[in-house]
């Protein structure tokens, strides 16, 4: 018996050999195409300006009050249609050569300028030059601007002032923000975002730099409060409004908790559930009782915790016996307390409860902050 599987693997007929060469050639062409695309990529056509660094975003109202004198002046009679202008006309208008060149390239790639504010897109166009050119600009379809363009009411309402942390959607749109951007800003605030400086506004999706520049003079930012000591003896007096970096023990929601190191959605939910069951945390140390919260994590988040008053107390003379157990007071224990009150009369002061021998000092130490002894 002859058995030759392997030699057959290497044997090719004439037709098969030619097919091999054809296939190799096609793969070779594919490789060349890949290299061509790599070394000669198609131009994107996007106008891309360098990102402004955070501290440079807001030139400040002062720059508008005292504009820098431009070195060029535009001839009074000149009318410029920004979408049909020629290079010569731009140079005649006093636009620097480089900026004029960029402007021409932008138009050549299909860019459209629908308002004077959009001229700010041109790389190299500074505010002073824009101010010089604006009176001479003529737009062909000035009346057909789309809804997303900046609301020109802004220029009429010079007394407008907006706090981006508190302004309503209506105020924001009245100031000229598109409705969609106003809602985005509002959603950002609802999730705990705050704007402490103008650069923070760039986080809002849809709020372009040009738009930001326009409304910036009308924005008012809160003065940052001096850092309160989170370990203060009297946390109520030194109450600090929660910021993304700190968490109010009794008011913050799960998203605020999740921003803390080591706290994920499960732990955040457990903390909230425990807090609701308790009626509030009266001290930070109670967090250690949350199931699954490691000691290490507690120490990591402790500096960020801001105590605040308990939200719900147990009214000793009204709510007992409890229908639903409190984490520190079971239904049975509440019946004992209720019976004691029925037998001995209402408590006159908190010290009186400690006499109840059914419970030890540890029990009272935990429970006392949650008891309200006011008589009905």
């Amino acid at each position, binding site marked *: *018996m002859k058995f030759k599987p392997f030699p057959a693997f290497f044997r090719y007929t*004439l037709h098969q050999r030619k097919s091999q060469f054809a296939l190799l050639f096609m793969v070779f062409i594919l490789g060349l195409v890949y290299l061509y695309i790599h070394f000669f990529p198609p131009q994107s056509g996007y106008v891309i300006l360098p990102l402004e660094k955070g501290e440079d975003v807001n030139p400040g109202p002062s720059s508008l009050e005292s504009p820098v004198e431009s070195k060029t002046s535009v001839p009074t009679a000149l009318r410029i249609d920004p979408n049909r202008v020629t290079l010569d006309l731009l140079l005649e208008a006093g636009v620097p050569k480089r900026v004029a060149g960029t402007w021409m390239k932008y138009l050549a790639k299909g860019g459209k300028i629908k308002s004077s504010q959009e001229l700010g897109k041109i790389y190299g166009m500074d505010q002073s030059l824009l101010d010089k050119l604006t009176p001479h600009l003529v737009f062909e379809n000035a009346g057909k601007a789309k809804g997303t363009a900046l609301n020109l009411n802004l220029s009429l309402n010079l007394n407008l002032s907006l706090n981006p942390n508190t302004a309503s959607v209506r105020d924001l749109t009245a100031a000229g923000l598109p409705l969609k951007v106003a809602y985005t800003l509002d959603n950002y605030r609802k999730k705990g975002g705050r704007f402490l400086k103008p650069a923070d506004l760039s986080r809002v999706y849809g709020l372009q730099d040009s738009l930001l520049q326009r409304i910036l003079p009308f924005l008012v930012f809160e003065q940052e409060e001096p850092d309160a000591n989170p370990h203060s003896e009297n946390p109520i007096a030194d109450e600090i409004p929660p910021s993304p970096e700190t968490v109010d023990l009794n008011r913050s929601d799960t998203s605020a908790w999740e921003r803390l190191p080591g706290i994920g959605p499960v732990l955040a939910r457990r903390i909230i559930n425990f807090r609701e069951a308790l009626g509030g945390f009266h001290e930070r140390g109670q967090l250690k009782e949350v199931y699954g919260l490691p000691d290490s994590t507690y120490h990591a988040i402790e500096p960020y915790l801001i105590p605040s008053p308990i939200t719900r107390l147990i009214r000793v003379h009204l709510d007992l016996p409890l229908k639903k157990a409190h984490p520190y007071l079971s239904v049975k224990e509440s019946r004992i307390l209720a019976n004691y009150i029925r037998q001995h009369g209402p408590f006159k002061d908190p010290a009186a409860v400690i006499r109840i021998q059914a419970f030890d000092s540890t029990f009272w130490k935990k429970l006392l902050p949650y008891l309200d002894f006011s008589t009905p």
Partner: protein
Amino acid sequence: MPWRSGTEYELPWARVPFVRILIPFALGILCSNRTTGSLLLGLAVLVPSLLAMIGAHRRAKRQVMPAPWFGLASLGAWWALGFAWAALRDDRTLPNHFFDPEKQYQELVVEIHQVDEKERYWNGYSRTFLEIGDSINRNVHGNLLIRIPKPGSYNPSSGDVIQARFRIQEPFKPSFPFEFDWNLFLHRRNIHHFTYLDTADFRVVHHPGPGLLESLRARLDGYIREAVPSDRDYPVASAMLLGSYKKMDQDLFNAYSATGAVHILAVSGLHVGIMAHIFQYLFGFIRIGKKKPVQLQALLLIGIIWAYALLTGAAPAILRAALMFSFLTVSRLLLRDSSPVNILAAAAFVLLCINPFDIYNIGFQLSFLAMAGLFLLYEPFRTLITVENRIVQVLVKVIAASCAAQLAIYPVVGFHFHQFAFYFWLTGLISTPFSYLILGGGLFTLALWPLAGHLVPWISIPFRYGVLWMNETVSWIYTLPLGKIQGWWPSLADTLFLILLSGGMAYVHFQKTRFSFNCMLLCGILFLSVLILEEKRNQTKTELVAGTHKNRPWLWIKHRENAFLYLIQDSMKIPRSYLEKYKLREENIIYFHPGKQSLLSGPLRLEGNQIIFGEKHFEIALEDQKTKSEYSKFQPLLKNRPAATPSITTQKKPGLPDLISFAADLKDGPSPRPVESPYLRIRIK
């Protein structure tokens, strides 16, 4: 088995030319280490191979069966081409890669081409094309994975072009021997860097609206949602019809996974086959005059299948099916008798030419192996039982097909997912008729939707109930005993051996020679012996592994059947599957927390070439080269402990056993270990 004897039997390689190309090409891709050196080496082998091919071709002239020189040269050429192609397609090979290790931050413009939503973030798979410099911008290239936090003011979508300052990092390597290797996973997708998006410092340069396909998909998805209102059934319906993955009921997903039916949820060859069958039947009614326009029907079918492939996301499995279908249809039109194995190999070859890294894609592997199994192993199974009854014949055929596919894919499924679905044959029986009902009913519903108006709930009955009944049936199968066999961890060698074994079965079946059977048997025994000896050696060796996991140091000692895992500090979750793989017992997992009672059996220290762990003394196996090199890094860690306070505790407590200091060294001390091995592994005698 009736053996052939006394005759010459040759495999019909002439009928499967693409198999002869695919084997060396795929091996070349797998061998490539994807560097510039690989590219040059590949080209260095390719050029002489090509010249040898040309020389052999000219010499062979018109011989009917020329000497195998051409074949050998062709083997070398295709291997070298695969080798070089993988290197060329790697991001980092060509110049102008975006990553600059000198810069801490880089301002880049990227285009996000795929968005993957997770619970707390999005993964944006993007391509870079511009780097903004201080004075000059430069064109760059390269893939970058961007992680975008949730919630945020920016929701990414495919096609977005964003500009941002990024701190580019390399994906994390596992700090645990059995941790998921994210670095390797991304590397195999040709992604070598990732970053987080700082939403305070970025700009969206371009945000295209949804494309035509995306809009159509969203609209159809809306129709499916109305037709299948049940929250449990809708994700299954959407996945089967449109390939869109919605969050499924976890129990239901586990049922599909355990019963081997999860392939139904991914649009693949089954769906293409059913679609083609349905449309072929419908197009059968088309007439031009009195004749059936066969070419027109074929072209229409190909167009519809490709449109469906693009609509459902063009995953490798469906691309494979669409390519195969196209090749098969064209070959029939041209009246060519093509081997299905050849068509399968051609489809694989085309896909690897487009993206050589698809070879690492699990969907690609499973899809092609399943088809290969069907083509090669279906006949042996089908002919095992012969019955007269036609219904039983159909059942036997369906079960044979399931067995054939499963035999080809079970090693890969075991390797990646560590499980085996015992009831695959039962699932195979129900999945095909239900798939017909669901896909047919779904097509019917979607086609008539704009016209149906109030009749929508009625026309969608087959679709809706098809999904419901399939879910219920799969859930019932899941409740059967031995539903899923878990805890199986074959190594790469085991997997390759099992695949070769399956291939060998097909080989013996087609060859039908005693010699071939003996060869396969001998190879199998030898291979198995080597595997058993290696496994035995691994089981008897003792290893000490020290590393950090999520910034918490840990120690692990595996000695024969016992494994001791010491975790420093709290809350380090060990997945159950890892306990199974390394035969860890719960009682041997010991958590140590300073301040609490020590649970350690004794301190760990190094004396000469011995590691002392409690009462156990382990001699370090320095004859093992890898151990020797690791040991040289291990020693200083134990000897040169810094006096600084270990950061895992807030203060150094006197009397701490040496274990805690050692663990602290790993975290705080100067780490001589290279980035490539974030954990140390020492073999102990």
